[in-house]
């Protein structure tokens, strides 16, 4: 197998919750290899999004380190790192202006053809490129956010519940879009989802998190259908809150 693109070593983040310290990410170590799709599953409050934020360095770990191509996060300039490790938020936020403005905001060196190509990749009608985005539906906005995510030419994309704010009719289309883009661009994707079925549809590997800890990991079908731990079985039976 090719060398890991991302390496998490004993990663922890402790926050103050109601005056008490709480580990939202608790001593997680894992290798993420190139061109694979990983899904992070687990109940609400398991620390899935907190883990993604540490990988994008939107938050700082309390202990442990993240390595990108073998080099520690802190050895990169944060802005340079975040262009290589893109982050898609659960609720898309578009900046004022048109789709083109949003893509050029992410990367001002994009040519006209590159803007068109990104818009096509995100399956947005090219006639909308110069249309203000303020009246778009959440689904359309998420497509623009995906095109904008690709504008910085990332190697890894972190997708934080990318369909949870969408209408069910849009979910399938966005899932399909994510799969196509990851295949075509040879990206490594880490997708947070609270839905095991979605993990099965789009992921190759799965990481099950509970209370900030990594409980199970491996091939997605094994983790979801054949869990080896008590917590894994409880999650499968939907008895974990």
């Amino acid at each position, binding site marked *: 197998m090719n060398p890991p693109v991302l390496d998490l070593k004993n990663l922890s983040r402790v926050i103050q919750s109601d005056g008490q310290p709480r580990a939202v990410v608790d001593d997680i170590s894992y290798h993420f290899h190139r061109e694979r799709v990983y899904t992070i599953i687990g109940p609400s409050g398991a620390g899935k999004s907190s883990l993604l934020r540490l990988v994008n360095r*939107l938050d*700082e770990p309390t202990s442990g380190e993240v390595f990108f191509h073998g080099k520690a996060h802190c050895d990169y300039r*944060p802005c340079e790192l*975040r262009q290589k490790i*893109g982050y898609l*938020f659960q609720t898309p936020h578009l900046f004022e202006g048109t789709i083109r403005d949003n893509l050029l905001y992410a990367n001002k060196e994009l040519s006209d053809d590159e803007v068109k190509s990104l818009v096509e990749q995100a399956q947005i009608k090219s006639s909308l490129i110069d249309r203000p985005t303020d009246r778009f539906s959440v689904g359309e906005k998420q497509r623009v956010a995906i095109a904008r995510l690709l504008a*910085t030419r990332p190697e890894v994309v972190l997708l934080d519940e990318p369909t949870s704010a969408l209408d069910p009719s849009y979910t399938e289309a966005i899932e399909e879009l994510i799969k196509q883009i990851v295949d075509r661009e040879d990206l490594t994707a880490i997708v947070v989802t609270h839905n095991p079925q979605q993990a099965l549809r789009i992921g190759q590997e799965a990481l099950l998190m509970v209370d900030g800890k990594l409980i199970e990991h491996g091939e997605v079908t094994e983790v979801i259908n054949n869990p080896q731990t008590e917590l894994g079985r409880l999650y499968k039976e939907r008895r974990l809150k």
Partner: protein
Amino acid sequence: MTTPGFLEVAISLVLVVIAIVIARYWRIPVEKDMALGSVRAFAQLVAVGYALEFIFDLESPWLIILALVIMIVVGAHAASGRVKGIRRPFVITVSAMAVGSFVTIGVMVLARIISFEARYIIPLGGMIIGNSMNASALTADRLSSDLRSQRLAIESALALGKGWRVASAKFIRNSATAGMMSMLNFMKTVGIVALPGAMTGMILAGAEPLDAVLLQIIVAYMLLSAVTITSIMAVELTVRRFFTRCHQLQHDV
């Protein structure tokens, strides 16, 4: 017009009584505030009057600076009470007000537009510090509120590899504008909608209107400078509290 004495002030209390009677008739529950406010205004202003006479007589530059420092500290304390969501906002308001006020007064003194005498520095300093106080409070409060409520917008930009300054540029602009807005509105309407205090005071004291106008123009420019410097300082000191060196937005500030 005669120079008013304590008797005239006592007679003018009839206006306070009229205001209280009107408020009571309309059942607006402010009679106590009005009565207390009138007594406080009397006590504070008389005290200031004696203090100014004392300072004017001494003509000590250190005393002038001390008076300005006290005014800034008291003003910054009042301004910090209006800034929500930041720990120890006094550090921000006092620094912003001190830089805005001293730079402006310093330029005017060095350019020999005003001389460094208590009778000029103290009243002009009071106007400058009063306006800086509002500017620092409005700017810091607006920026703190925007940076908290617009977390998704800011982190969307940070996640694309933008630095904290770019990610928060819109909110920096909006808050600095908010801090300067009342001054800009004053500049637009001055002399048309209302005659400003310094000019009115000079005319009432018997100065020629044109002399009063020229001084008022200088005062307006001084206030503009002080408010602008204070707002920018307040923005810089506030925004840096919210971001780490690694361009991360933090809320525990």
